[in-house]
């Protein structure tokens, strides 16, 4: 994670943001209990598997012309809500209100449009997933905030993890290539690491990338918004009530691969910096302007996803987060490569073993499951504890998986 001073030659770097631009997590409530949902978990996960395309590539359920897609890249979550995917309230519970207002689709290549226009409404692969989670009573760590945010003991909630798919990837690739061409020649910045190619934020190239990145951000907001609609439809079908009656409001939507312009005090001086969060989540302390109205006095909700075997956390941005430019962890972190994980575990065995432990997983590929084995990740509790001791984010509750749709 790095913050650069845009008024002092500070750069923007695609490598500091991540190729899966605005990859993030969305957490959704229900008013259902574990006892009510558990008997239907296979049906729910199977239906999600049918309704939400997952895996590498794959066309989404949202059919768009390239012109309509360009509109999505400008309007993000707002496009989705205005076209029948979700509620206006969802945008109030999303970072940036669900739109990168600085986006400019004119800065996006035709190759990127080509790659992305049929991918809205897809989960992706790798560590992307849609998980049904259980709030065990003993896992509520902050009773006051949990209650305020709509969390109750034995509740079932849904969390999903996805980003900007081929779109974000192509945009990052396009500008990485461009920056490699100009950074030394035009701006005298030595290339130490090709993956960290950059350009001054205030240069033409820097500004173009920032605006194109905004489009990738909008892609992912629209993507998560349309997937949310499908999740609500599935629950509605299974429980024979509309999503509103099932209390399916969002808690929040966060990203952990994005750069945002923010004001921070550095050595007593207020500066405007570009905070690059690659594999880091924003954790704003109480009162900061970035936090939507309903959460402003609490601090921003933070979602940190663990492995499919261990669970995830809902946290709140803490008072000392200024010392990390309001940033915290994003997951538990891999401890081994995907190829090593596939050598150590067999997908089919893992699925059977997890089902015995009460977690029903449906995946597009067995190899993909093996890659995501819990043993391939760090201990999430330890990661969370480190952020708590550092005063940057504080746990509100831990969420245990009982069902999972894996890409």
């Amino acid at each position, binding site marked *: *994670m*790095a*913050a*650069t*001073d*845009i008024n*002092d*030659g*500070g*750069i923007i*770097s695609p490598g*500091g943001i*991540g*190729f*899966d631009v605005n*990859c993030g997590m969305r957490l959704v409530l229900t008013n259902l209990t574990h006892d009510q949902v558990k008997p239907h978990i296979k049906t729910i996960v199977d239906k999600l598997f049918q309704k939400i395309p997952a895996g590498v590539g794959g066309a989404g359920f949202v059919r768009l012309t390239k012109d309509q897609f360009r509109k999505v890249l400008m309007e993000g979550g707002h496009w989705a809500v205005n076209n029948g995917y979700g509620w206006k309230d969802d945008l109030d519970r999303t970072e940036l209100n669900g739109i990168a207002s600085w986006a400019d689709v004119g800065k996006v290549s035709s190759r990127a449009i080509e790659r992305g226009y049929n991918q809205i409404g897809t989960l992706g692969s*790798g560590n992307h997933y849609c998980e049904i989670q259980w709030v065990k009573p003993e896992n509520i760590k902050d009773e006051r905030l949990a209650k305020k945010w709509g969390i109750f003991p034995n509740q079932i909630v849904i969390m999903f993890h996805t980003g900007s798919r081929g779109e974000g*990837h192509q945009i990052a690739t396009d500008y990485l290539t461009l920056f490699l061409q100009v950074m030394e020649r035009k701006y005298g*910045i*030595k290339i*130490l*690491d090709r993956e*960290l190619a*950059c350009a*001054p*934020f205030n240069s033409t190239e820097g500004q173009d990338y920032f605006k194109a990145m905004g489009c990738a951000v909008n892609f992912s907001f629209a993507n998560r918004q349309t997937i949310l609609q499908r999740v609500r439809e599935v629950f509605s079908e299974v429980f024979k009530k509309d999503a509103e009656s099932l209390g399916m409001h969002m808690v929040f939507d966060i990203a952990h*691969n994005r750069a945002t312009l923010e004001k*921070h005090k*550095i050595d007593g001086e207020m*500066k405007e*910096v570009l905070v690059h969060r*690659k*594999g*880091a989540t924003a954790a704003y302390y109480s009162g900061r302007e970035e936090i939507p109205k309903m959460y402003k006095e609490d601090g921003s909700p933070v979602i*940190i996803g663990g492995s499919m075997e261990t669970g995830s956390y809902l946290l709140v941005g803490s008072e000392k987060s200024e010392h*990390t*430019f309001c*940033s*915290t*962890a*994003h*997951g*538990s*972190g*891999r*401890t*081994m*490569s995907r*190829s*090593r994980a596939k050598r150590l575990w067999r997908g089919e065995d893992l699925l059977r073993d997890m089902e015995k432990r009460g977690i029903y997983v449906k995946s597009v590929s067995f190899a993909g499951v093996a890659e995501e084995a819990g043993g391939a990740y*760090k201990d999430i509790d*330890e*990661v969370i*504890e*480190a*952020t708590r*001791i*550092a005063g*940057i984010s504080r746990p509100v509750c831990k969420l245990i998986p009982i069902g999972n749709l894996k890409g």
Partner: protein
Amino acid sequence: MPFGYGDFKKPTFKKISDVEWIIEKNFKQGMKVPVKVVATKKLVDGMDLQVYDQATNVATLPGIQKFSYVMPDGHISSS
């Protein structure tokens, strides 16, 4: 680069607190700021050396303020 491959230099960490560790600017040529690792000692010891190589490269970026940060879940990623 794959996990655990490559000849990465092991940094010396200066302890600020139980969850704050610094890699000083002199670790690599061109570093404009130090690296701050926010993690317990156990997590620091378990991190792939390539994480610190990446973080110290980030520390050379023009305009970077205060520190190049590594979070407790720091790991190598291509995305």
